[in-house]
């Protein structure tokens, strides 16, 4: 495949895989993979249904709330860890443990602690996303040019000024990278939460469709979910490119 620009190859390969899907589906090899055309047809019929929109709303709500807390708690924590040796030594082991821990195994504990409702799902989502956001914010602060900090200090910057006008911006490229990866992990978190804690939202749809062997529906919802995650991640990648003009020159 000839590479003209950035987008064309990515889209082209998707077309190729879509074609393969259609061929395998049409051949009737397995009930598990209906033709792509059928999946897309199902997709448009279920998009308008109440069940789907309710699921979309529930999932979006849990997802956005979870990501919101992950960002609002994660970024300041990471920045403070990067700035303070003490805080770093206190928290870093935990961050690393939770980053690599199988968080799914923690979900039952969360259910005991926070019940079977939306609260537990949101916390699960936050837990999936927050660690990489903390680590990246911390890394962003740690690579900051010392003389920028001295500069701010010498011109009389208060700690608050330094935080918002130096540290945050200096670490922004890394922070955005962390948020992007965190959001991808949050998609995992919200679906796992909805499957394990209470069967609501997209989790409920997955459960319903796979239990009834409605593979067309199953794949359709998966495509919607994938498209949403992809769009958000691409938007963040775009934001990252917006700050890349200074990322390499700090």
């Amino acid at each position, binding site marked *: 495949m000839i590479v003209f620009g950035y987008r064309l190859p990515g889209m082209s390969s998707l077309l190729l895989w879509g074609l393969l899907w259609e061929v395998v589906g049409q051949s009737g090899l397995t009930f598990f993979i209906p033709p792509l055309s059928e999946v897309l047809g199902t997709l448009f019929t279920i998009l308008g249904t109440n069940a789907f929109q309710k699921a979309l709303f529930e999932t979006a709500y849990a997802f956005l709330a979870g990501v919101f807390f992950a960002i609002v708690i994660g970024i300041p924590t990471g920045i403070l860890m990067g700035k303070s040796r003490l805080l770093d030594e206190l928290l870093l082991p935990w961050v690393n443990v939770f980053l690599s821990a199988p968080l799914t195994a923690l979900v039952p504990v969360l259910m005991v602690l926070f019940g079977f409702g939306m609260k537990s799902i949101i916390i699960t989502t936050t837990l999936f996303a927050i660690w990489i956001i903390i680590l990246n914010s911390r890394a962003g602060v740690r690579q900051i040019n010392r003389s920028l900090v001295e500069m701010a200090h010498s011109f*009389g910057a208060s700690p608050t000024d330094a935080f918002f006008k130096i540290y945050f911006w200096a670490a922004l490229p890394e922070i955005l990278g962390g948020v992007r990866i965190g959001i991808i992990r949050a998609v995992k978190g919200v679906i796992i939460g909805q499957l394990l804690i209470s069967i609501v939202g997209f989790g409920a749809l997955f459960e319903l469709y796979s239990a009834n062997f409605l593979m067309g529906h199953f794949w359709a919802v998966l495509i919607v979910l994938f498209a949403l995650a992809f769009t958000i991640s691409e938007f963040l990648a775009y934001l990252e490119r917006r700050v890349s003009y*200074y990322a390499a020159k700090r």
Partner: protein
Amino acid sequence: MSQTRQTLTPAGAAGFESAVSARHISKNYGEVEALRDMSLEFPRGQLTSLLGPSGCGKTTLLKIIAGLLKPTSGDVEVNGKKVTGPGPDRAFVFQDFALLPWATVLRNVAFGLEMRGVATSEREARAEKYIKEVGLAGFENAYPHELSGGMRQRVGLARALAVDAEVLLMDEPFSAVDEQTRRKFQEDLLQLVQNENKTFIFVTHSIEEAVYVSDQIAILLPRPSRVSEIIRPSNFRSKGVDNIRRDPEYLDIVDEIWASLRTYVE
């Protein structure tokens, strides 16, 4: 030559008033002794260079004067007031420029004023004035990475000038720019010292640069760090920028400083 040189004398004896005095400054980093009992007077309205081989503590002394580092003992007075931290009476020009890479030239120059809570319109007006003064008019909305090294240091200089501090602290400000730009900078600096009624403290490792721009040169020697001598060139700088580098006194001082520093260079 002897009339142009003097050993360390107390303030006043040489007929000047000190803007900055460093008294018995010592600075230890753990076991390492960076400065030991160093005293130095900086005459008002003049440019004093701190010159010495690497490791002689010149940057450390400058940062102590700036209030960025705390001395282990001794103190610094600026206009008779003891230094406890950075203050509005001093502005710093950094070796690596220390510009905010995400901000335009205008915002960078206005940064010091922004930290002082000057209103946006006023600080931008003042920043624009100093951007013009350092010869960067038309680049107000450029970003640092779009500028050459020399232009970036002009931004750093404009930022320090914009806060209108009485004392300008310059940490090897021209060491990261190319030779031609540096010569232009040195000429501009002489103009600046003459036009602005400010006290300049200038760290450099270039002997020629120090002799070219300074009213007073403090030679610092390492292990232990100390002021070995103070040189006050007489009057060759009044002969015009074009004649300084071939003035016999200029050449003699450069040679003599090299003779005394030579043994300390590995």
